[in-house]
Structure formats: structure tokens, C-alpha cells
């Protein structure tokens, strides 16, 4: 294999990691508070706001139900406004992030839902404020579930980022389509797939390790 091709594969791998990292970090930063809000504003919860909860729930569901490939195309004007272009890895990171936010939010909500209600009640009996309950009880107690959720998100982002290749997003998916599929190069196709598999495996193992470390049950 020529060194040019090796460089190409290396660059594509870095591009994929870049897209996953950017969208992973931003979607966590937005999705974590959103997930906490989705949980804590439920009726009879510590910040009970049934109307807000309904609205957030609907927005999240809408975001979750749009197929990624459609979302990617549909928000091109927004992407262009944000990063000045609609192709390349920065442009691809925008729909990836937007798709991941509601995904992360629901997973966080699910993780918080696993925390025993008795713990919230006992914190309330100690005079904890809602903010203290979130920071000192809910999030720490749900951290295993939260890490599991973020691992699932990263893995999903890897596969979505490959889809972003289809619209000129760059990264391994793009490489696989252009060289592997369009130019009938099965070796390139195989290499990209193998790298993707290794990447997913890596994220999963890291996530599992962190969950094990945080688990005191």
C-alpha cells in the first residue's frame, strides 16, 4: 500500500475521532442538563414542572424520531450559518451533535430514574435543596448508568459519523464510500471497517472499565 494511501487512512481516522469527540463533548454538555431537567421536572419530582416537562419531552422525542440522514440534509442552512460551510468534518459535527443531544438526554434521564426514590426523600429530609440533591445525590448515584449511556452515545456517534461521509462529511465513512465502494477497492473498505470496529471496541471497553470502577454496589 502506498504511503499516500496510508496517510489518507490515518487522516480519515483522525477526522472520525475529531467528529466523535466534538459532537460527543457538546452533546454531553447540553444533553446532561437536559436529561436532568427531563427527570427532575416530572410530576412529584424535586423541580416538578409538568408543563415544562411535557414540552421538553415532545422536543426530545421529535429530535429522536428524525432519521439522521434526513436531519443532516434538513439542517444544512443552519450548519452553513454556524460553520460557514456544509461539507467537511466541522460541518458534519453539527448534525451529529444535534442528533446526539436528545439521545444523551433520554439516556441520562433513564440513568437518573434508576436512583432509588428513597435516597431523594432522605436527602430532602436533611434539608437538601434541589440543586444539592442533583449534585450530591442524583448524579453521583447514577454515575454508572450515566457512563453507560455516554458509552452508547460514543459508539452510536462512530457509526453516525460514517454516515456523514455520504454527504461529504469526511472521516472513515467518507473514505470507505469513495475509495472502497466507488473505486471498487475492497482492501480500503475492509481497512475502514476494521478501524471502525476497533474504535467501537475501544470506546466500549473504556466505558465498561469506568463503570466497573465507579460501581460500589
Amino acid at each position, binding site marked *: 500500500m502506498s504511503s499516500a494511501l496510508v496517510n489518507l487512512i490515518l487522516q480519515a481516522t483522525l477526522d472520525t475521532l475529531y467528529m466523535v469527540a466534538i459532537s460527543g463533548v457538546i452533546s454531553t454538555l447540553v444533553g446532561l442538563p437536559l436529561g436532568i431537567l427531563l427527570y427532575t421536572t416530572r410530576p412529584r419530582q424535586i423541580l416538578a414542572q409538568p408543563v415544562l416537562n411535557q414540552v421538553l419531552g415532545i422536543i426530545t422525542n421529535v429530535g429522536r424520531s428524525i432519521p439522521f440522514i434526513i436531519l443532516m440534509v434538513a439542517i444544512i442552512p443552519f450548519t452553513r450559518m454556524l460553520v460557514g460551510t456544509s461539507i467537511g468534518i466541522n460541518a458534519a459535527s453539527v448534525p451529529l451533535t444535534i442528533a446526539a443531544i436528545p439521545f444523551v438526554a433520554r439516556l441520562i434521564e433513564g440513568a437518573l430514574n434508576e436512583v*432509588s426514590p*428513597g*435516597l431523594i*426523600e*432522605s*436527602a*430532602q*429530609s*436533611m*434539608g*437538601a*435543596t434541589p440543586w*444539592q440533591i442533583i449534585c*450530591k*445525590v442524583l448524579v*453521583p*448515584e447514577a*454515575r454508572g448508568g450515566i457512563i453507560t449511556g455516554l458509552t452508547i452515545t460514543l459508539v452510536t456517534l462512530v457509526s453516525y459519523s460514517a454516515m456523514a461521509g455520504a454527504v461529504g462529511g469526511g472521516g472513515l465513512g467518507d473514505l470507505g464510500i469513495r475509495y472502497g465502494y466507488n473505486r471498487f477497492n475492497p482492501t480500503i473498505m475492509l481497512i475502514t471497517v476494521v478501524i471502525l470496529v476497533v474504535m467501537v471496541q475501544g470506546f466500549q471497553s473504556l466505558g465498561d472499565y469506568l463503570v466497573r470502577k*465507579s460501581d*460500589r*454496589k
Partner: protein
Amino acid sequence: MIELSNVSKTYGSGDSAVHALKDVDLRVPKGTIHGVIGLSGAGKSTLIRCVNLLERPTQGSVMVDGQEMTRLNGSALNQARHRIGMIFQHFNLLTTRNVFDNVALPLELMGEKRSVIKDRVLPLLKMVGLADKAQQYPAQLSGGQKQRVAIARALASKPGVLLCDEATSALDPQTTGAILELLRDINQQLGITILLITHEMEVVKSICHRVSLISNGELVEDAEVGEFFTAPTTQLGREFLNDFLQLTPPKELLERLEGAPGPSTHPVVRLTFSGDAVSTPLISRLARDCNVDVSILQAKVESIQDRTLGLMIAELLGSETQTREAMDYLQSHQLHVEVLGHVQRTS
């Protein structure tokens, strides 16, 4: 001191309304241990949660150590809750914090400095006998140890009142005894007022000073523990007592029991006696003075704190006049006589 006045709690409204508490009045003087006993669904949990406003009463007022809880909201309520400790049936310890940090939690919530926290937590762990477990996590502890951690945590903010929500219901009898002993020590050493809810008479018997009986959201009895165990005034109270003492007539006797006396029947009575009556040889006097023979079917003597309680199920053998006189005699000596029924003479 805890004082509930006309406290009602209703869930829902209109036809689907559920009245969990109806017009409850309860006064727990400072430094005493008060038990509320009742069957599940009677409103015990709601009652205890109304004290620290985990449940806000629909009506009525709640005073704790001179502060009217029901007037408080937001941060004032949180401040007041720092003065009320609470422990739970399922301990509710944070699984991701070790023992030390669990006990430190209420102090952290109050914004105490790390050095203050350390000075406060270690003596508490010593008091509950877990000084060597400070670095362990709840998953490594037994149920009894977890409840000890929860007790230390509840006491961390130096509360004047401790609420115990079925604190021993998830523990085996031996551990229950040890936890109750700890609660009694705490009550005596710190002078803390304790309100506990339970469905176990054993808990009431071993540590409470006073007890209330709750049924369908209403307090139907309120008595000194000794009084409650010797002479409950309600049917439900008697059922609790009989279950606790396991003094019910043998099945074989129950089958022969007839409601009304006949020409050739003996009365079967349940005698409850306390105080001086326990140490008086009443049965032999019965035989001598009333000429009635007594066939004892079951008997038990229990000591309830400083009182002794005797119970007996017996058949009185004699003519109708003689047995009636015998019962009058017993009653005149402060025995509680309950006629369970009548059986045919066997001989």
C-alpha cells in the same frame, strides 16, 4: 417536642379523594419516645412525613421544637429540617459514598467546613459502634450496620427530634433488639425526642414511653405503653395485643366454643391482670372462696418495661351462680375478664 394539631392529609379531590389522615392530634413531649402503631395502609407513613413536611398536611398545624413547620417554605423549611433527623426502613444510604462520607452528607448540605465535619463524624461513628468501618461502602455492611450508619447520619446535624420510619422492619429480631437499644441510649444520652412508626408491638414494648394506635388515618388510642399493653381500649388494640402475646385459645377449644351458655356448660374466660394482681394467688383463692375450680388452658406473664402483665385463658368449673360470683370476684381485684364462650361439660 412535636405537636400535631388537627392534621389532615387528603390525596386527590372529589369522589376519588383519599383521606390518608383525618384530624390527627398528637403531642410528643421533649425527650420522650412515642410510637405510632398500625396496620399497613393505616396512614403511619403519611403521619411521620407530615412532621418534617415531606408530605404537606392539607389542614392543621405541625410544631417541632417551637417552630411551626406548616408555615415554612423553601430555605426556611430546609433550615428547619436540619433540626430533624430521620431514618428509614431501607436505610437510604448513598451507595457511592463510604460510611464516613454518608454521615458527613447532612453537614456538607449545611455548608460546614471539612475540619468541623471530621470532628463531628468520628465521634458519631464511635457512638454507633462503627469507628472501624469509616472507609467501607454500604454494600460491604450488614443491614444492622447500615441502619447504624443511617442513625449516625441522622444525628450529624444535632437534631432535637428523630423520626424513625419502620426503622427495624427490614432487620432480623436480634438486630432489631440491638438497634432499639441504640435508639434508647441515644434518647437517654442526648435527650432527643423520638417519634417512630412501626407495625411491631415488640418495638413499642421495648423502647416507647407512649403509644398511639392509628387506623384508617385516625388515632384511635393514645396511652402509656404499660397501660396500652394491659388494657387496650379498642378492639384493634386488643387484636394487636393478642397477636403479640400469641394468646388465642387452642383451635380444638375454639371448635367446641358456644356463644350462649346452656344448662350444662362452663364459661371460658381470658383474664388479663397487671400490677398487684400478678403477685396475688388469686386462682387458689378462687377455688377456696368461691368454690370454683379453674382449669388453665394457656397462661403467660410478660414484663412490659416496669410493669408485669399476666394473661390466662381458663375454664371455670362450677355452677352458674358460682362462676358468676368468681368472675365478679376477679373483676373486683382489677382483673380484666373477657368471656370467650361456653363449652359443654365433658364429664
